[in-house]
Structure formats: C-alpha cells, structure tokens
C-alpha cells in the first residue's frame, strides 16, 4: 500500500472503513509530514494535539456510517472554528478565537471529519498568490519560490504536498480554482447559495462561496455532498434539492453539449494555454460530448466590474474591524484616532487598497457612476451565460491565463495581479458553479488547469464532465518533496 498521506480521500475512507488504517494512524501520518514541511508555510494555526486526541476517540468508538469517518482535514483560515484561532490571514484578527463554528466546517465535523489545523491564505482572501498574508507567503510544492496561487494558497499547497487528504477554500473571484490550477489539484466553486456563508470571514458577500479542493474529482464530489446544505443562518442560502454527488458521479457524458466561448481567447494569451484548451476540447469530444462554439460578448468587462463590486462590498464588510468588539486595537488619542490607527496597523497594503477603492466608489456623488454601473454590467454578464445555456449544458475554458509565477514577480503591480482572475471572475459575477481540473504542464513542467462552468445548481454535470475528462487526461503531479531536503 502506498503511503497514507498520498491516498485520495476516497481511498483513505475505504481503508478506514475496512479497518486497515485507523483514524489515529492517519492523523499521525499527516502530523508527522507537517512537522517536516514547515518550510512551505501552509499552517497559520496547528490543531495537531487535539486532532490526535480526537482521532483516538474516534477509533475507540468508531462510526463507519459517517461520510468522513475519522478523516483528518485542514481548512482555510477564513472559516470560523469554535475555540480555534481564526485569522483570515490578517494582523487585525491575529488573536481572534471564535466562540462559534461556521456551518460548512460544522457539516464536516458532523460527518466525522477532524480538524488538523488552519491553512494560510491571502489577507481576507484578497489576492491571487498568497503573498498578502500577514503570516508570510506560502511555497508551491511544485517548485521552490513559486506561488501556490491565491487566495486559498495554503489549501492548494497543503493538498499538493499531501498534508491533508482534502480541504476547503473560498472563492470570490477565483480563489479556489486559480490555486488549484497552479498546484495540479482540483477545486470546485459551487453555485452561489449552495454552501452556507455563515461563519466565513466576509469579503464580498454577493460573490463569496465556499467549496471543496481535492486531489481528484471524485473526492470533490464526496466533500461537496458534505458541505452543501441549506442554512437558515445565511439569508442567501438557497433551499434546493441537493444531489448525492458522489454516488451519482458518472463518466457517461455522451451527447452533452459543451460550449467554447470565443471571447476567452484573450490578447497575449500564451501559446501553451491555447494548446491546452484545444487538447481539452479533443478530450471532451473523446468522452462523447458535442462541442459548440458560443459567444459571451461581455467577458472583457467582467474584471473591471469585479474590481468595483468586490472592493465596494469589502469596504462595507470590513467596517466592522474597529478595535472595539474583537481583534487588534491600537491606542489613539480619542475614539476616531483609535479607529484610524487600528485599521492602519491591522490591515495590510492590498486590503487597504481595496477598502480605499470600495470607499471611493461608494462615496457621495460616485455611487451611480461606479457601483450602479457595475451592477448593470453584471446583469449583462449574467445574461450572456443565460443565453449560452439555451444552447449548451456546460462551458469549457482555461482556468488561468498562465501557470504559477515566481514569488515577488507581480506583487508590485496590482493590475497585472488582478488579470490572473480573468477566466474565473465572470463565473462568480454570474453565481455559477465552476471547477478547475489539472490538464497538462507548461514548458517548465508547472501545472495548467482547465475550467468547466455549469448551469446554476448543476454541480452534478460539472463534476461528471470533469470526472470523464480527468480519466482521459490522466494527469499526475510530480512532487519531489524538495522542501524536506
């Protein structure tokens, strides 16, 4: 048998159910490997001792009917975890210990999952490289000094480095799919309203959505089944009939219509991305899908729209960090001075930039010109997809316009950093489900991903297409454990 830490979630569950591996053995393996992997900086807060204790308790009184029986799982540090520090990658929440649990993580513990620890991420999930975290950048296990993507960069790196069997991230503009693409892993952003936002540190509330990240498609289907639920505590949670995604997973996608949007062929896109996309189209055909050319005419307006809507919502959401109720407080000569110093010292550069943009576009006299205009364009972007879905069942695009870049390469140029999300942002604006699967490598052997976008609430079709294509692509990460040497 291969090492415990390199098993997929599905294989690990099987072994635990067959009593070939105990929950405690699994927990020990992940903890041991994490102790040797500090260099890649995936953990903000470790929960190792508690995880070992809880896994023992599971073994003493196992329940194999659960969907995640005694499975150790690390999660992005954006999910509030009861009595375990939750920082959102920010200095302002450095000492924040929630007294409640996010619904998504609670769903995982209810099915037998055990918390391994909290994973690094860009500060308040604002970033595409994990370089904005107060707790330092994360190394991509693929190669030294390479970013793991962001904002769920600790999650993608932990997965690729075999430090957790699966994980969860959040995706506001690509923060699950882009890091998955950069690390040769699978990341799914579900339909807006599928997974509860309760207890997730808020960034842009009309876009934020939690989702599974995994080593293969089947594992994402297992985890989605656990985390997707209707929740009264989230006013935008949607009560729809959720599938048993893993048991309904099939490679029979014969006759499905897959759209290829011509607007995703952007200027300056590297040849290798174009080639990868073409290869993807061939794979989809091999699986029996019908390929149809489509148009999403407002695609090029998605990023400018996003960079109004997301900062506007962020500036409102982050108004709560005032040094009074929780988090960091700096001293000031009066109340206002205390607020200003707290927020200046507590927030990093990227967060300040976005709060400033958001405050500006919402300020008196500018609301109509920016925010209202952006909401109108957002409508046009959504209508593009509605019209496309009259003709096709799903859409196939590249996940990112490039492979992972070097640490520091883009951190001084915000706009070039934002362009990373060019293929993922429209999906958030339209509230659709989208998955990134590894599909090949570039000239440096860095992974590249393909994105499959589905109709609202049709995660099953997205997963089925991904599952079928994954078999044909047969991608394998080549991880050398360089950080242990």
């Amino acid at each position, binding site marked *: 048998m291969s090492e415990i830490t390199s098993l997929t979630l599905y294989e690990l569950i099987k072994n635990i159910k067959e009593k070939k591996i105990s929950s405690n053995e699994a927990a020990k393996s992940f903890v041991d490997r994490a102790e040797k992997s500090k260099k890649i900086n995936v953990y903000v807060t470790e929960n190792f001792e508690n995880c070992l204790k809880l896994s023992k308790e599971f073994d003493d009184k196992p329940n194999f009917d659960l969907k995640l029986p005694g499975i150790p799982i690390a999660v992005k540090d954006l999910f509030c975890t009861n009595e375990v520090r939750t920082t959102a990658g920010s200095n302002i929440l450095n000492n924040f210990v929630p007294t409640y649990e996010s619904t998504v993580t609670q769903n995982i513990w209810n099915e037998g999952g055990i918390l391994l620890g909290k994973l690094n991420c860009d500060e308040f999930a604002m970033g595409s490289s994990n370089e904005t975290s107060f707790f330092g950048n994360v190394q991509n296990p693929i190669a030294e000094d390479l970013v793991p993507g962001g904002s769920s960069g600790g999650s993608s790196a932990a997965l690729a480095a075999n430090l957790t069997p699966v994980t969860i991230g959040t995706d506001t503009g690509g923060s699950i799919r882009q890091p998955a693409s950069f690390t040769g892993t699978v990341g799914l952003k579900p339909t807006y309203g599928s997974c509860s936002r309760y207890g997730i540190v808020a960034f842009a509330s009309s876009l934020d959505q939690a989702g599974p990240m995994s080593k293969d498609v089947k594992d994402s289907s297992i985890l989605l089944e656990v985390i997707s639920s209707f929740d009264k505590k989230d006013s935008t949670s949607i009560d729809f009939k959720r599938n048993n995604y893993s048991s309904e997973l099939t490679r029979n996608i014969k006759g499905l219509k897959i759209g290829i949007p011509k607007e995703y062929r952007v200027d300056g896109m590297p040849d290798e991305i174009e080639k990868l996309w073409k290869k993807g189209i061939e794979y989809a055909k091999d699986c029996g899908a019908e390929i149809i050319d489509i148009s999403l005419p407002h695609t090029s307006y998605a*990023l400018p729209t996003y960079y109004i809507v997301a900062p506007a919502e962020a500036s409102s959401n982050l*108004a709560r960090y005032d040094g009074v109720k929780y988090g960091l407080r700096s001293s000031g000569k009066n109340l206002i001075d205390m607020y200003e110093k707290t927020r200046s010292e507590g927030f990093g550069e990227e967060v300040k*930039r976005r709060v400033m943009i958001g405050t500006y576009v919402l300020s008196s006299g500018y609301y109509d010109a920016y925010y209202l205009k952006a909401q109108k364009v957002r409508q046009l972007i959504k209508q593009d997809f509605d019209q496309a879905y009259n003709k096709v069942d799903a859409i196939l695009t590249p996940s990112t316009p490039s492979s992972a870049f070097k640490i520091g390469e883009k951190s001084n140029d*915000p706009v070039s950093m934002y362009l990373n999300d060019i293929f993922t942002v429209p999906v958030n604006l339209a509230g659709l489900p989208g998955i990134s699967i590894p599909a090949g490598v570039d000239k440096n052997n860095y992974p590249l991903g393909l994105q499959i976008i589905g109709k609202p609430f049709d995660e099953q079709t997205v997963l089925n297409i991904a599952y079928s294509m994954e078999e044909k692509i047969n991608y394998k990460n080549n991880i050398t454990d360089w950080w242990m040497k």
Partner: protein
Amino acid sequence: MVVCDNIFYHMTIDLKTVKHISKLARISLDEKKAEKLATDMNSIFEFIEKLNELNTDNVEPLTSIAETTLRFRDDKITSENIREKILKNSPEKNDDFFVVPKVVE
C-alpha cells in the same frame, strides 16, 4: 471626475482625494503611503474605465444573484445568554461592556 449622462470621465485621483477617502475609510495614512495609494488607485481606475464603452441605460442592475426574496423568520429569541461569548474577544472590557476611549468630555 465629471459625471454627465451616466458616462464618467475619469480624472486623476489626487493626493487630496486619497486623504479624504482615507478619512472616510478610517485608515490613517502617512504622506508616502498616500502617494503610493494614489498611483495604485489611478492605474486601477484607468482599467475600470473600460465600462464606459457600454451603454447601460436600459439595463436593470443586478443586486442579488440568488433571485429569491429574503425569508422572514419569527421574531423570537433563539440564542441563550451569550454575553460572555460576545465580550470574550474584545480588546478592552469591564464586566458587562466594551470599553472605548472617552467620547464625551
């Protein structure tokens, strides 16, 4: 910045505007940081300008993707006594309250 007929012409965000916005956002900035932010914000807004190409006069703004009306709930207390939990993370408190710098002389 001039707004006319729903089309906006972006003019450079100057240092004075950046300082005004930082007051509204309650973030103190030193001179150097304010200058850097002005540069960054200008390059970002230049990029946002692209939206001007579109005529959106007859488009309804999309305010919620979920397309559902917000649910009502019964007006009932559902949480137990959580005063202690709420106060637990506050940087400064006495027994029952958050403590802030003096606001009334």
